[in-house]
């Protein structure tokens, strides 16, 4: 193929199979992520349907447990993470004035691992014995039992992790080596900063998960006994290794979303981000601290007092830089000229929702209090508030914000607001009652429950169906915007600032072949 042919816009299925273009790959990640969101959302509806009433009406407990396990794995590894890698692919090169990602062919492979990994994960559910059913945290001894469905899942997680690691290497190399001249690190958009830090978190944490999973695989099949007491091992070791990964993982999920909020709130407040430098340092602090708090997921395993106290203090400490970020977003809005288009609604709603989750997190951080909350619905409420509040609200904020840039069409603002409000009402209806269920003693990961929990479970189930239904509006909006609508200008938003708004809407297939001048 000649260079000219390649420079033209490729078409057809081979375009998508072989693309090394960061915009195409970003689109692939986002489309994949939303397909997985449908799968994961369906699983959540199976869960909430069974929990509509006490008793076992719809599914048997083993299948229910497979649903809770798979729902989490699909949502975390199939939806949230690929969606944000997709946003990174689309936006980071443009934001820093680079022509593409540092390693475009590896970028293609990073994406194309995912459909195979997802297939393995789903296939595991159909294997004899079903998929893993002990929760997404895969604790042994339970996870060392179980049939081939568990092996499918473990291999799938290896592949998902590999994709994330390669994607992160690409992002770091792009940001460190390919910024346009004049764009120093401290002039980078916050989305680029949060992704840079997240990418380092990913390459530090994900391989540890790979180690834990490999140890599970060898315990299952190759006669090792890392987690087998009979052989001198210890199941609690798995919990340590897993959560050493698992805690940085949750910050991996939220930090890029924080970057999105830091881009959008200044735009619609028509005011620069308050305290840019402190936002960078706060993000870095959160990332560093995230490595020393892991055992707050394990307060009840029998650690000595000194250990419990250390993790309690460190966990409380991590609330400080997080609080700095929230104060800075609020301060950005203070005395700003605010308008409340859909991206702004998602951003403010996201900060608010995340903050509620942060408060329940502080409650969970207190060791003796956590003895009551551990493994109850209080924890379920907490993590849905922080992940949905930050990651998902952040994702929708980003998509509404940049959709006009990507497609060249304005989306319907009315429909966007409907999507936002129905999702917000539905989400809070689903998860706010779960705080009280947990405090009242309802354990998590159970298909049947004591009678007194019925009413709040019913609120929660109604909310779940409302939330999922509201997403149909989003799919309609997105597909319509891809195919038509009012023409978007280059700048799209009055208060928008950044290199992406200097390009046309949609941007050229290859942008910034010549580096832009940075003020």
């Amino acid at each position, binding site marked *: 193929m000649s260079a000219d042919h*390649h420079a033209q816009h490729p078409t057809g299925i081979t375009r998508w199979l072989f693309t090394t273009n960061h915009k195409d790959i970003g689109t692939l990640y986002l489309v994949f992520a939303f397909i997985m969101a449908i799968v994961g959302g369906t699983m959540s509806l199976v869960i909430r349907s069974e929990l509509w009433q006490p008793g076992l009406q719809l599914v048997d407990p*083993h299948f229910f447990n497979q649903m809770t396990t798979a729902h989490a794995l699909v949502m975390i590894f199939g939806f949230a993470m690929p969606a944000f890698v997709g946003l990174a692919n689309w936006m980071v090169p443009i934001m820093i004035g680079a*022509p*593409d990602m*540092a*390693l475009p062919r*590896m970028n293609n492979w990073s994406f194309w691992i995912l459909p195979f990994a997802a297939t393995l994960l789903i296939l595991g559910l159909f294997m*004899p*014995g*079903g998929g893993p059913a002990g929760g997404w945290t895969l604790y042994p*001894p339970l996870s*060392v*039992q179980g*049939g*081939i469905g568990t092996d499918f899942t473990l291999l799938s997680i290896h592949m998902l992790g590999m994709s994330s*690691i390669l994607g*992160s*290497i690409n992002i*770091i*190399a792009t940001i*460190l*080596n*390919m910024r346009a*001249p004049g764009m120093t690190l401290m002039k980078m958009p916050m989305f680029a900063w949060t992704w840079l830090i997240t990418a380092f978190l990913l*390459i*530090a944490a*994900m*391989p*540890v*998960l*790979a*180690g*834990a999973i490999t*140890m599970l695989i060898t*315990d*299952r*099949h*190759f*006669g090792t*006994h*890392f987690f*087998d*007491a*009979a*052989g*001198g091992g*210890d199941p*609690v*070791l798995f919990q*340590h*290794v897993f959560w*050493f*990964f698992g805690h940085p993982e949750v910050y991996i999920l939220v930090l890029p979303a924080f970057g999105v909020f830091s881009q959008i709130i200044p735009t619609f407040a028509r005011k620069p981000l308050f305290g840019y430098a402190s936002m960078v340092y706060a993000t870095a602090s959160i990332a560093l601290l995230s490595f020393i708090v892991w055992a707050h997921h394990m307060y009840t395993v*029998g*650690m*000595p007092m000194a250990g419990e106290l250390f993790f309690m203090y460190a966990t409380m400490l991590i609330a400080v830089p997080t609080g700095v970020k929230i104060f800075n977003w609020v301060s950005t809005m203070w005395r700003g000229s605010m308008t409340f288009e859909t991206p702004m609604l998602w951003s403010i709603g996201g900060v608010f929702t995340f903050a509620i989750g942060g408060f329940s997190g502080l409650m969970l951080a207190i060791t003796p209090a956590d003895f009551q909350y551990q493994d109850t619905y209080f924890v379920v409420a907490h993590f849905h508030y922080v992940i949905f509040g930050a990651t998902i609200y952040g994702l929708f904020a980003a998509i509404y914000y940049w959709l006009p840039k990507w497609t060249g069409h304005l989306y319907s603002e009315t429909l966007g607001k409907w999507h936002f409000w129905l999702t917000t009402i539905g989400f809070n209806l689903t998860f706010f009652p779960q705080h009280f269920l947990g405090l009242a003693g309802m354990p998590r990961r159970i298909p049947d429950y004591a009678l007194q929990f019925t009413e709040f479970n019913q609120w929660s189930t109604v909310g779940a169906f409302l939330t999922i239904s509201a997403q149909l509006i989003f799919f309609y909006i997105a597909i319509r915007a891809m195919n038509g609508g009012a023409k978007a200008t280059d700048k799209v938003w009055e208060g928008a600032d950044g290199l992406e708004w200097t390009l046309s809407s949609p941007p050229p297939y*290859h942008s910034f*072949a*010549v*580096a832009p001048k940075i003020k």
Partner: protein
Amino acid sequence: MADAMQDGKPKPRNLQAANRRLALKLAGVTLAMFAFGYALSPMYDVMCRALGLNGKTGRTDVQTVAAQPVDMSRTVTVEFTGLATSGLPWEFKPLTKKMELHPGETLEVKYLVRNLAQEEITGQAIPSVTPGESAPHFKKIECFCFTRQTLKPGETREMPVRFVVDAGLDQDVHTITLSYSFFNIDKVSAQKYGGAALAQGEDHVAHQGHAPAATGG
């Protein structure tokens, strides 16, 4: 497509090389963190031993013990318990349930074990001591848990444990409990006696959704 860079930017060849170098370094970090994940396993053992966590007991020998004085000013109660796990068809119990001793004294108790099955079975006992802080001070000179125990069908054995509670034991500790969990070291045999839940490790036997009822008595 990256060929058209100008404005004093590094030339494409250098940039490609720089990206590759950085990517390789980051891949190295990835591998190092993978190794770190594995290193956590022995590190965990070391930390548990050093901090007396997980009830991992200390070991000592006759000469060291002889050199230490006996603290006659206090007594400590030591209780003994044991469990044969479901995959091990043995009767297993301590012959002494409780004793009073002085820190520094060497004592011996015996556990009785009997193979109830029709075939030879080998077991491994894993000890645990509570409270955790007392575990490093509970030092065993000789114990059946140091080695695997093989019993013929119907065989009965009395197995000794010789130990000393050293004088460094915290003054607040008045009772120590020594517990053993006895495991069948053969996973296929464990599954036969204990059910599919115990099928793990070598010769993994895939099973259908629900574990079959345990066979045998």
